[in-house]
């Protein structure tokens, strides 16, 4: 195992034991040898990805994914503040909970993306399609991540997508109903589906590389 992998494992362990001081020290040590952007994109991203993957295969629980993301988000805000030019904020990206009020999934994805150096708008929860269309147009959002917990909310994304048909924005969906039906994201005409925060990060990374 090379030094980077060992450091990343070390960080992962610190996150899973909720040792935020140790996690911060590991990250601070890393930025002595490379830019904060690289540390966010490699070290932190890798650790969070492995934690997300371990949840996916049943080895970890969602509370651990959540707590890890929150700790990393706090650390990254110290080494790469929100207005820092190192933050990737183009194309403009936002995240929202559509219609329902279950915010945890959004929070996990938001933390993971921010901890990986991506700056995005948090539009909140309980948003109607009219409200989202209006914000997307006004803010010229190009990548919109939508989280839902309830099946009816997931189904109504199809109507939201129809209303955004002539707007240059990619819709990335995620949440419980999609995890129980692999076909659902296609049925509602979403552009992408991320089954967890790691996949959401991969999708956003690719879209940012290609300009949305």
């Amino acid at each position, binding site marked *: 195992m090379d030094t980077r992998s060992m450091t990343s494992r070390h960080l992962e362990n610190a996150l899973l034991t*909720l040792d935020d001081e140790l996690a911060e020290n590991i990250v601070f040590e890393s930025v002595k040898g490379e830019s904060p952007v690289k540390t966010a994109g490699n070290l932190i991203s890798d650790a969070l990805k492995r934690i997300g993957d371990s949840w996916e295969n*049943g080895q*970890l*629980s*969602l*509370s*651990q994914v*959540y*707590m890890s993301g929150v700790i990393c988000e706090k650390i990254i805000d110290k080494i790469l503040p929100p207005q820092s030019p190192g933050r990737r904020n183009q194309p403009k990206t936002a995240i929202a909970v559509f*219609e*329902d*009020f*279950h*915010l*945890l999934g959004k*929070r996990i994805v938001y933390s993971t993306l921010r901890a990986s150096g991506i700056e995005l708008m948090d539009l909140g929860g309980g948003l109607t399609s009219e409200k989202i269309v209006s914000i997307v147009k006004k803010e010229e959002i190009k990548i919109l991540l939508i989280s839902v917990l*309830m*099946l*009816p*909310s997931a*189904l*109504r994304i199809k109507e939201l997508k129809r209303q955004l048909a002539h707007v240059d924005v990619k819709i990335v969906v995620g949440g*419980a*109903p999609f*995890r*129980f*039906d692999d*076909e*659902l994201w296609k*049925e509602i005409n979403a552009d992408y589906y991320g089954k967890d925060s790691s996949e959401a990060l991969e999708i956003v990374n690719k879209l940012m590389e290609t300009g949305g």
Partner: protein
Amino acid sequence: MKKKNMTSMERVLTTLSHNEPDRVPLFLLLTMHGAKELGISIQEYFSKAENVFEGQIRLQEKYNSDCFYPFFYAPIEVEAFGSEVIFREDGPPNAGNPIIKNFGDIKNLKTPRINETKVLHKVLKSIELLKEKSKGTIPIIGVAVSPFSLPVMQLGFENYFDLMYFHKDLFNHLMKINETFCIHWANAQLEAGATAICYFDPVSSPTLIPKELYFETGYQVAKRTISKIKGPTATHFASGSCLSIANLLPETGTAVVGVSVQEDLSALKQAFKNKLTVLGNLNGIEMRRWTSDEASNIVRDTIHKAARGGGFILSDNHGEIPFQVQDKTLSAIADAVREFGTYPIAE
């Protein structure tokens, strides 16, 4: 040899004793479909006990389900604490803004008294009406959200994780309040005529919290609470996993476990064999687009994996079938149970 036809109650009691009844019991856990039967909105449907009674009677007659399920909606319990409930036309209502806005509110939270809380009276009345009608031949399943899972609606998931991890004293205080409420609420339903209580406890699932944390928290809460509920309970994880805590669940005193489609049903049946009855695990989300043939095949496969020896009730994996699932699919499921679920189960 074909066994004599049993009543639903006999069928369920036989499987709960880990013996084979005449056929696999079917719990079609339908709630909002009652509104469809009565041709009224979901909000109007749940406004009166008589509507839910009538809806449950019609649904049971239509699909020959082996239980009545007078579950209104999960947020009714936080409604009892004073929270707002937001209805929608096409699905279950949501809890509104959390009643606990900051952790300091926990100290001032009062346990609602069941006999002084009008919204809960509707549920009790619907149970009483069903009890009178069924005369003990069909089990009536009441519902109580576990004291450990209720805080998701009382203060939101993120705050609840913070409370659980970093504010143990306040967490314990909230558990005391919720345990008192849960025990009184479950027992009130049993007194009204419920046969058993579905103890919804999704937060205890290893999908949501680590096994070690469950052992310190949700497990202890379940042991304390279930021991004071004066009737059988079914612990339901609402689609969450439970295989890795299978050794702990029987010790909570529960009789039934609701399992997820995302875990291996054969392995679950083996893990709970002769200890707990397995309830599950049809995928309610996919069910919405099943053809009748698909429904039939899935029911057959599910029965083959878990029904032998009893200790199994066919149901969905979430504890509530989505409003969007069509009647013809529900009929296909009910027909398939009769076709493939007669004991002895064919090889």
